[in-house]
């Protein structure tokens, strides 16, 4: 752990009539692995977008990597922040291969008018190797499965050589095996590259066990935060999902085992 590298003070964000964040304050220290959980619509994604400067603050202040965020310095900040957005369907006929998509991660750093050189391609290939995608490097991007797409997105993010690693529901819509693999990959990358990671998910099962800290969000507010073993109590979770957690577990078992 080290210095504070994200400092959010009383952030309020609104999209048209809806208020997505209603005064959120959060500090994250260098090297931390923070899991952010909460039901759909809790403001988790919005919280990530104000960290990389894409979200528009209605009020409040944000410092990231030592810089006070203003609408004008977002571009330069984003070059240092790796962001893996939620999976979207990619056009299966999109004329780009996996390697080219990962290279996009380097475009911001390269700056205008400069083309990727040998060094950039080496980094891209290294990242593809790291996420275990070397064998698919020349496949058209639209031909990959959900789990493979997610690995490519992570590789793209790492090609940026970021200091901050933001992941938005990286395991949503993946099967159990792919989910486990992505979680292990994220943890391994976090440790080996000494990153600071914010990991957003609505699914408790997809929360990495390795989180240093968990933040519970609901209705645009942070309801609680702390170390996972202390925070993830039945009481807290029941409140978060408006349902006794034992009931959630019971239903899940009923669905899986066909009992009840």
């Amino acid at each position, binding site marked *: 752990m080290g210095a504070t590298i994200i400092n959010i003070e009383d952030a309020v964000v609104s999209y048209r009539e809806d208020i997505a964040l209603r005064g959120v304050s959060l500090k994250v220290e260098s090297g931390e692995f923070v899991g952010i959980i909460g039901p759909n619509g809790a403001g988790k994604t919005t919280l990530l977008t104000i960290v990389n400067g894409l979200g528009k603050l209605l009020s409040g202040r944000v410092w990231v990597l030592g810089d006070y965020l203003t609408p004008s310095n977002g571009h330069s900040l*984003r070059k240092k922040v790796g962001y893996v957005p939620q999976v979207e369907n990619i056009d299966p006929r999109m*004329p780009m291969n996996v390697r080219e998509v990962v290279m996009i991660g380097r475009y911001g750093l390269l700056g205008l*008018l400069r083309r990727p050189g040998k060094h950039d391609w080496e980094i891209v290939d290294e990242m593809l190797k790291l996420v275990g995608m070397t064998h698919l490097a*020349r496949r058209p991007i639209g031909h990959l499965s959900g789990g493979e797409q997610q690995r490519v997105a992570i590789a793209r993010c790492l090609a940026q050589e970021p200091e901050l690693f933001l992941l938005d529901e990286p395991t949503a819509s993946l099967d159990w095996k792919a989910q486990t693999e992505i979680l292990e990959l994220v943890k391994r990358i976090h440790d080996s590259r000494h990153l600071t990671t914010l990991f957003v998910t609505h699914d408790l099962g997809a929360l990495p066990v390795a989180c240093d800290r968990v933040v519970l969000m609901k209705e645009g507010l942070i309801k609680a935060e702390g170390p996972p073993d202390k925070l993830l109590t039945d009481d807290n979770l029941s409140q978060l999902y408006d349902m006794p957690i034992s009931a959630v577990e019971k239903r899940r078992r009923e669905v899986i085992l066909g009992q009840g």
Partner: protein
Amino acid sequence: MDLSIFGYQFMQNAILSAFLGGIACATIGVFVVLMHMPFIGVCMAHAAFAGALLGLWLGFNPLVGAFTFSLLSAAIIGPLADRGQLSPETSLGVIFSLMLGIAFLFMGLMPGTKSGALELLWGSILTNTRSDIILLAVVAVVVVGLVFIFYKEIQATIFHRDMALSVGLPATLILYGILFLTGATITASLRSIGGLLIFSLILNPAAAAYQLTYSMKRMFLLSAGFGVLSGWTGLLISYLFNIPSGATIVVTSSVIFMIAAIFSPKRRVKGWQKKPLLEE
């Protein structure tokens, strides 16, 4: 076949116009196809047509009217496209029909013969003058030049706008730049191809190229090639059978698309795995 026709200035002008217009339109088409915004292009083309008619009616340069109107429509459409997620089709439908309505309104208000207006509707590449060609050349050079210079920014924006933004690229600026170039290309080609037909020359060559390759660079090149091929073949057919050139150019481009679609390796789902063609 009597080839002496190619010795005439007007025919040489037409051949040059088809070449330049084909390249500019087909390059713009790659954006339109890959960013999934065909309806935006149709909308801007009709706005340009309405603007040109306003110019004809009130007696100022129709191309100024066309450019202004297509940019105005881009200013309305841009934020719709920029908002992403929500499908802007309904709003575009409203703007599109409004533009067509305005165009015919101006046409009705116009006194005297409507031949100038009809020319803008169907296009008449055979009457292109030197100044038309210069305008087409400038637009073609600017479009191709900008794609060349900002290739990586454009490629990232086309692939995924939010992703381009998140790595620190000015993707919103690039989106508006693309809309601006679309307006300029439509304006410059309006007199040659016509307001009703111009959009096919934008869409078809790129849609054909899209069927044939998994490389974006190759898609740009193929599309430009198909654009020029459409223009020249259409021109030849128009001359041989004495039929309107705008129409033959557009029909040719559609035929090229159909052929490409039939032979598309992308239609054979597993085909590319056995034969990984056209990479990088």
